[in-house]
């Protein structure tokens, strides 16, 4: 059992928790993820690590309350326990030797982009961050990004805060104005990452994307998290849990990944409603 040491709500549907898991905290690096189960009968879900404090032995996770399991997780309070917490899994984001990087986060993906920006900043990389949200109400981690970025652009789809539009618009503007980056690292919805890749393509900037397919074990056993990459003209199967979750954005088949992520849409909607109803009854 793993204790929730701290819990705070970042907005109405995004919660941050710090979980006591000393072995995971000691090893966790930006870009890696954990697998958790809320209770003994629960499903295994992957969540990317949003930070760790090895001295205290805690690992930070930030999650959006979107389905049955995240609804149950969100109901857990400070001091309470979750059943299982395994990690750190996957390969860390490669940041070494990079002088100038653009970090692009979308929505709750910013929770994962933030530790990457922080690690880059701490090694002396010049960091430009673009963080995008649907609207001002769901904006998260602006202060953190500001402190780890040499330049920060906040975008909202509806223009209620910062730049009006999605993250690719300021990216394109910068690239067209001759701005150069060693790399673009983007984390967020698949559709956003797909368009970041498309925006960067004419300028030949390397793009790293963080993939979030459906997983079960997360340790290289089930193969559910497979993606198709095109390498040197050949299509190859890779597994996000052990080969990723970071991949070269130009190689990823995003349309296939988006389709695969919708495999259990009906089931998930049913489970979410069930969890919502249970929560209402409890209240």
């Amino acid at each position, binding site marked *: 059992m793993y204790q929730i040491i701290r819990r705070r709500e970042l907005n109405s549907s995004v919660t941050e928790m710090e979980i006591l898991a000393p072995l995971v905290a000691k090893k966790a690096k930006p870009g890696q993820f954990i697998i958790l189960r809320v209770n003994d009968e629960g499903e295994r879900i992957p969540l990317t690590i949003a930070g760790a404090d090895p001295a205290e032995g805690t690992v930070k996770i930030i999650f959006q309350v979107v389905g*049955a399991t995240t609804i149950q997780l969100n109901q857990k309070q400070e001091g309470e326990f979750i059943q299982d917490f395994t990690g750190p899994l996957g390969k860390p984001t490669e940041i070494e030797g990079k002088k100038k990087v653009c970090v692009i986060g979308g929505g709750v993906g910013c929770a994962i982009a933030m530790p990457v920006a922080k690690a880059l900043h701490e090694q002396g990389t010049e960091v430009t961050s673009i963080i995008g949200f649907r609207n001002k109400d769901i904006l998260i981690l602006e202060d953190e990004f500001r402190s780890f970025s040499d330049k920060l652009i906040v975008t909202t789809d509806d223009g209620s805060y910062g730049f009006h539009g999605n993250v690719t618009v300021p990216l394109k503007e910068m690239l067209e104005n001759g701005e150069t980056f060693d790399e673009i690292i983007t984390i967020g919805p698949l559709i956003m990452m797909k368009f970041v890749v498309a925006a960067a393509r004419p300028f030949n900037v390397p793009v790293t994307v963080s993939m979030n397919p459906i997983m079960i074990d997360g340790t290289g056993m*089930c*193969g559910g998290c497979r993606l198709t990459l095109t390498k040197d003209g050949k299509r190859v199967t890779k597994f996000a849990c052990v080969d990723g979750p970071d991949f070269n954005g130009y190689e990823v088949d995003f349309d296939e990944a988006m389709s695969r992520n919708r495999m259990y849409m009906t089931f998930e909607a049913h489970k979410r409603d069930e969890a919502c109803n249970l929560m209402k009854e409890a209240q």
Partner: protein
Amino acid sequence: MALDPKKHEMPTQDPQVRAHNFNEVALGYDEATAVAEASRCLNCKNQPCVSGCPVNIHIPEFLKQVKEGNFEEAYKIITQTSSLPAVCGRVCPQESQCECKCTLGIKFEPVGIGRVERFVADYHNAHSTEPAKAPASNGHKVAVVGSGPSGLTCAGDLAKKGYKVTVYEALHKAGGVLVYGIPEFRLPKSIVAKEVETLKELGVDVETNIVIGKTLTVDELFEMGYEAVFIGSGAGLPNFMNIPGEALKGVYSANEFLTRSNLMKSYLDDPVTPIMKGGKVAVVGGGNVAMDAARTALRLGAEKVYIVYRRSMTELPARKEEVEHAQEEGIEFLLLHNPVEILGYNNPDNPRDERNGFVTGMKCIKMELGEPDEKGRRRPIPIEGSEFTIDVDTVIMAIGTSPNPLIKNTTDGLEVNKRGGIIVNEDGLTSRSGVYAGGDAVTGAATVISAMGAGKLAAKSIDEALSGK
């Protein structure tokens, strides 16, 4: 008393009934049948059966005790060499091991050794109230990576000799493939839990949720004071055929399909982890895993299940009893068939059509057998122009696995072969001093009992290396 030429029948659930439930198929012998079957043993002097057993169970001795009604004595004899008798009695391919060496088998059917072994283990588990006693500590610490058959065996053997053993398991539950892979109807999970409990009584610590190679490395285990490490991390990533359509929704690896159903209990009426149920299902492959996946799909409510295998029934590698059970349950075997493409739904007028990207069928080609390959199995050759399509909603690939890369990538000096399997010598020792390995992590996908044999060998080698210290 005249010798019965046939094995005593194993009572089973009726095929029509069991095809719709997850309860165990084979029901086990009662006392009288077990005694009668054990009495068929000729008690040969040279004991050929023992040489056929990867863990060399003293078979004639335990059968003699059963014949005399001393079931607990029989249990003691089996557990001198086997840590998991209730498991082996159920999942071992006895027909190609102990029973194929049985003298009686030359003229008649061999003694049903596996069935009697199962009876003895079940009898003990039902009647024994005494917890296993932890022996006096010998002061040595050993770490075991993975709680599957090789790891549990290695841990059990060492614990019985007084070693302080910690088993590290990556998943949330101990048992490895016995829990995530082999279905409830073939190996009830309560039996695996009982075997793990017995190990704990012997003083073995089981730490779940720890991925060696990630949470801790092999080097850190040595820093923590373990004097030897056994790697039994199991098979690994599933293989796919690299044919078009394998990323469509409805295509599973057998590992994923079985893990969802077994470990995550998707077979329950209102599961928390989803799985595609019903419709028509094709399972590609001919091993035990393919049989397990096919029979699981059937029990989940499939209207039709095919096994698609590129060779003929003679080459089919699955355990004979599982093939027979699958046939009785109505699974159709498309032998000498090979998939060439998986077909999916695509509505060109509506990219948002919810059915887009789901499997609708599988194109297969007919095969014929040519010359034997390097393993002596006749090579399947496609018959040109024989392609045809079967309608299916789910495709399950059960064509083997490749070893998990996590430990190899994080352990300096650990040598692996071309296929990624850890290289060991005849003592189970790897290229790293103090690091032993066995099971699927070494051999690639194989059987439970061969993994147990490897765990046993490593335990013996570890004991020899450490007991002098």
